[in-house]
């Protein structure tokens, strides 16, 4: 069970959260003007990262807010969480 640092509430256990898929996929502003391939990419194409992955979580059974997280998919360690609209933090250096 992961421990997730909600930017609004602090560290809470995983069952309070719902995973929201890859982060930073903006819905095209004018969908009608987007060609089929790019629309399909927006709908379906996601990265399958081995390493640091920017992803969305929602504190569904807490404050209800969506936020973003950087998680290393090889270790399940979070390198940071941040609010919607913020730029991802630089991955913090692991302590030696």
């Amino acid at each position, binding site marked *: 069970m992961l421990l997730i640092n909600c930017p609004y509430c602090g*560290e809470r256990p995983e069952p309070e959260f719902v995973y929201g898929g890859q982060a930073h996929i903006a*819905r*095209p502003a*004018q969908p009608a003007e987007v060609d089929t391939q790019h*629309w399909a990419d927006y*709908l379906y194409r996601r990265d399958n990262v081995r390493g640091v992955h920017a992803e969305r979580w929602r504190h569904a059974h807490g404050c209800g807010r969506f936020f973003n997280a950087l998680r290393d998919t090889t270790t399940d360690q979070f390198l940071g969480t941040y609010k919607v609209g913020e730029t991802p933090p630089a991955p913090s250096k692991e*302590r*030696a």
Partner: protein
Amino acid sequence: MSEGLRTATGGTIDRGRSVHFIFDGRRYAGVGGDTLAAALLANGVHLMGRSFKYHRPRGVLASGAEEPNALVTVRRDAARETPNLRATQVEIYEGLEAVSQNRWPALTFDLGAVNDFFAPFIPAGFYYKTFKWPRRAWYALYEPRIRAAAGLGRAPRLPDPDRYANRFAHCDVLVVGAGPAGIAAASAAAADGARVILCDEQSLPGGSLLSDPHAAPSLIGGSSAEVWLREALTRLTANPRVTLLARTTAFGYFPHNLIGLSERLSDHLESPPVDLPRERQWQVRAREVVIAAGAIERPLVFAGNDRPGIMLAGAARTFLNRYGVLAGTRAVLVTADDDAYAAALELKDAGVFIACIADTRAAGAASEQARAAGIPVLNDAVVLGTQGRRRVNAIELARLEDTELTQQQIQPCDLVLISGGFTPSVHLHSQSRGKLLWSESLQAFLPGAPAERSRSAGACRGVFGLAQVVSDGSAAGAAAAAEALDPARPGVAPAGGAPRAIASAPTHPEPGLVGALPRTSATHGRAFVDWQNDVTTKDLALALREGFRSIEHVKRYTTTGMATDQGKTSNLNALGIVARALGKSPPQVGLTTFRMPYTPVTFGSFAGLARGELFDPLRRTPMYDWAAARGAVFEDVGLWKRARYFPRGSEDMHAAVARECVAARSGCGIFDASTLGKIEVVGKDAVTFMNRLYVNAWNSLAVGRCRYGILLRDDGFVYDDGVVARISEDVFHVTTTTGGAPRVLAMMEDFLQTEWTELKVWLTSTTEQWAVIAVQGPNAREVLQGLIDIDIGAAAFPHMSVARGNICGVPMRLFRVSFTGELGFEVNVPADFGSAVWEAIHERGESHGMTAYGTETMHVLRAEKGYIIVGQDTDGTVTPDDAGLSWAIGKSKPDFVGKRSLARPAMNAPERRQLVGLTTREPSVVLKEGAQVMAQPGTPIPSRPLGHVTSAYYSANLGRSIAMGLIAGGRARIGQTLYVPSGHGDIAVEVTSTVFFDPAGARINA
């Protein structure tokens, strides 16, 4: 009790307290503090089980959790029967009843032992090759027989009557293992102010100290091990920051330092208090973890190594020092390491005749010491075989120099002690995804850099020797406390860094044997690698001959390391044998994955209190009690209990539903629609939000009006639907399907919080705030008129109106909507008034033919009108046009969720499956929902169907069956005859419109 097998003094047992127990129907006596294995050995009983495959007689091999052979079922009563318990861990109590497993009719005479003679025909993987023909026989004959012959204990047939508790805990430092390293670590961490949990799987803390109470005082600062232990435990127990848990196994290491502990509370008690749970499962979130899990002694792999009476040297030492039990009277020690010599010397002191020590290595200091004590030592020894059926009675030894056998000898004995060295218990470290490093000098895998905030201490990281272990534990505990209490601590990332240097230098250049003893021309008999799964050296060789190379594949083909003991005693030897055969080093071959649980954990402890009525939350509407009192039959819809129908007298569902359907269309029906999802969308941008989200045009929806809304996903497929009312300019009352409310709200929040952050909109779930009473039928207006304070005449309050008012003095939102096709209203009142208002409406309606109906009737009535149910008539691949709902789309809107996808050419292909009506040629035949629809009768299987039936009912109002289905190019097929295969031949159906009843819609506008 056999005379002379129990020592006069010493150990942790209570000699004065006699404890009687039953094993395989025979009554024995042990003493307080005994395990079942210790008590049986004290009675001279070595034969405790039969092996998994060959049914070979097996004795106890080990003294703890790693025991592969002595598996028993402990039975309290018919419902309390626990299989596959290790006799080495079962604590006896007065009247304990245990039975051996995998034998029939008896342990001493087992017919299944015939398998042993067929052993050459049933090597590893035999069932993959032998039982191939005929194919059906595998399921009917071969597999059941193989499973019956090869087996462990049986699960009880009755429901588990015991209670299991759960506890969540946090601590600064969790220490796993209360041996010398763990106690030292816990003491150091607690002394530095940390909150500590110290757990150990055994009944008493102490670990190896319990088997070695007289360890040289000088090793641990002057006092004896016994005294050191007592003093340390007194300090820990008195410290309020320390929680000491006995009989508690740390079974799993989960991400971010969550450790699962299984605490056994009552299995050791003769008559447990009724209020005591049987087990308690802890989920401990520890800031730091110290793993002090110790090491497990490795057996030696040689011919005939599995007879009862052959046991690990350390186990014999534990039985002697902790339980005061002599495991035999005449013993031979076969060893590949120095530590085991202590067992021989101590047993000799206790009066056991040590016939010989056979050391597989050249002579060293330990050999000389033993010779000095008067024990013959055979160096460079090999074992040629053993003798004895239900108990070993001799071992055949020789010295192997180059390829020559000398000093061949047969040593009579009733006990063979074996030791191949120690395997550090890296299970938890590895479960946490920590890397393992191979130590050439120790011939062992050791913990590498941790993946979590954990550190290993003592024997589990290759530190041996009591003084070193204690100081290693102290250092680990102090370091863990410092990390845990560091205010600058950055969350849950692992401490990282390089593994600390290993303190111990091995005392002998060959510290144990990883693999098997060499076979010679004179060797006879099988050499077992995995006792519990009956895997021999030959099986491993066979797997390699057949081309398996990965250790994971070898494991699965031979089943080595796969049983309930998960190869605690066998994995490393198997790896050594495979590595040698492949000419590789053990780390090049690699180790199989360690998985939780460390030892088996009962299902009950995972379920905890989530059983029966507490399994899932239950949601009841305010009118539940009214319906229950009238004998309603309920159905589960999500977590809701919904009234399905209200049978009268001896009515079955069919009869009740037919009556309810007719009543709703001829008089008046009342229906509990409270489970409908409800979301209040509020804010100055509410209409913009609704426009962007739902397909409909919301600007044109006037205050006081409702509209049927459709919600798509951005891929263009129908996600949810429901009536949306405009309460005021900036307030929308949105309803969703019963099951869809949470996901619709989540989707709304998603868009609002992440895409359209500029919109001033607030969303509130109001599902449970409103009780919803649907009043439907020609008399609905008359029934309500006398109860409410607003004008609901046809002109003032037409179909799809909404208004605020009062009913019986209670504030309400009144909708004129219909899911039946009749004149209908939905009365929304605050939930607390729901029951009273319902009863008032029902009472007033009785003179107007008022009939309560349930969800089944609701389904039939809506299907008569062709109204869809999202999730039943749609399946996530259905567009609004497929469902015949494109009329709802706001055509002039530049965008809404899903609009771009609807413009894809594939979404408009004429052969898409479209929702149509289906009527059977024979009116009384009701189709099966989910049935396939074919173009031609007698279509061979397999064939691609045109579509399938989504809804099918008998309509009492129409006097015939009706159905809807998704059919390829369906609307162009209206009038065609299609065929629905069934168990009784093809059913001819005509494709029709989805509206079966009142197609003009006159009734709804009445």
